[in-house]
């Protein structure tokens, strides 16, 4: 499935996921703790430079914030009116820096590397009957389900349009959900027939 990770050979890609996550946390705290405006500007420049290190089209990745631009403008306007231009600018700088920095971690870290880094933190869930390998299975199942549900939705939409449906498209939510529930029942049965969710390195019969 599509992920936001992009495959490049950069120093950021080579860093371990856990380190990047800790670095992100540390940088976020520093950004807010050190409240002088020039700190925010310096951070922003550093982050933008880091995008350049992704390769030739590194800076094009900065457009990740595109869907948020209308909201940024609104927030900036509201803040300028209720506080001051300098407060609004500082806020905007920090927000951009943080979003770009966090996104950078996502761009340079594979999903499975991220999951491996985070799994140890989830091991207490064993106590409620959710072992790490079961979490991994559920994640995989979730990811597998998404395109299937999309396909169901698209075929329902096609049939709807060919019957000249139009206005009340939301009605498709009903057959879609019933379809989805039936599908999940089949998957549960198939899973049970194969002996359930196996531990890794255990051969499936």
């Amino acid at each position, binding site marked *: 499935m599509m992920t936001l*990770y992009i495959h490049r050979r950069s120093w950021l890609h080579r860093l371990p996921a856990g380190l990047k996550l800790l670095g992100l946390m540390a940088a976020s705290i520093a950004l807010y703790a050190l409240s002088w405006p020039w700190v925010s500007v310096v951070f922003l420049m550093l982050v933008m430079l880091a995008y350049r290190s992704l390769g030739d089209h590194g800076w094009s990745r900065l457009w990740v914030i595109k869907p948020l631009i209308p909201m940024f403008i609104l927030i900036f306007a509201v803040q300028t009116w209720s506080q001051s231009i300098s407060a609004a600018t500082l806020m905007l700088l920090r927000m951009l820096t943080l979003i770009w920095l966090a996104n950078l971690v996502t761009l340079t870290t594979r999903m499975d590397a991220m999951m491996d880094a985070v799994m140890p933190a989830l091991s207490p869930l064993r106590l409620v*009957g959710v072992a790490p390998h*079961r979490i991994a299975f559920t994640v995989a*199942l979730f990811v597998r389900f*998404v395109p299937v549900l999309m396909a169901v939705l698209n075929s329902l939409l096609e049939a709807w349009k060919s019957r000249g449906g139009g206005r009340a498209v939301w009605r498709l939510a009903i057959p879609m959900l*019933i379809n989805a529930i039936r599908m999940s029942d089949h998957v549960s049965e198939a899973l049970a027939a194969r002996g359930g969710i196996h531990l890794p390195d255990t051969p499936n019969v």
Partner: protein
Amino acid sequence: MKDQALVQIALYAALVAALGLIPPVPFVTGIPITAQTLGVMLAGVMLGPWRGLLSMLLFVFVVALGAPLLSGGRGGLGVFVGPTAGFFIGFPVAALVTGWVAQLLKRQPLLLATGVGAFTGGILVLYLFGIAGFALVTGNDLLRSMQVMSVYLPGDCVKVVLTAIVAQAVHRGLPRAVATRQA
């Protein structure tokens, strides 16, 4: 936790993801509404509070890992530090409260129980998280944040009604599928 429960949890997380991939529909007020929070409320109503919570936690987790499953194809860690971060982080609690309230009202007519549950969880609780997150990220005060976010209310109210209608329709066909209605 039983295998079947995990499958259901994965399914409803996938449902929220699939709903997020539907392009936003321009609403009467001019603000485009996305279908995603419909899935959140449905997860609460259909799975019940705890499994609904786990399902949305799974969704949020996988988005954090780097999957572009939020409306508009957004995802990754960046969405958790943006102005709308509160809403996404609130998904699990919204599903929990939706399921809990719907379950509390299980003796009431289905439409009422699920509608009230969806409203409490999908609007009251979710907006609580969303507004708090917005205020934190942008440094605005709570009142201002509420004013900004209130534009999304009409669309979300429509979704509350939809949740109830869909739950009722599914219950007619597959009564066991609605956990908050089981005795």
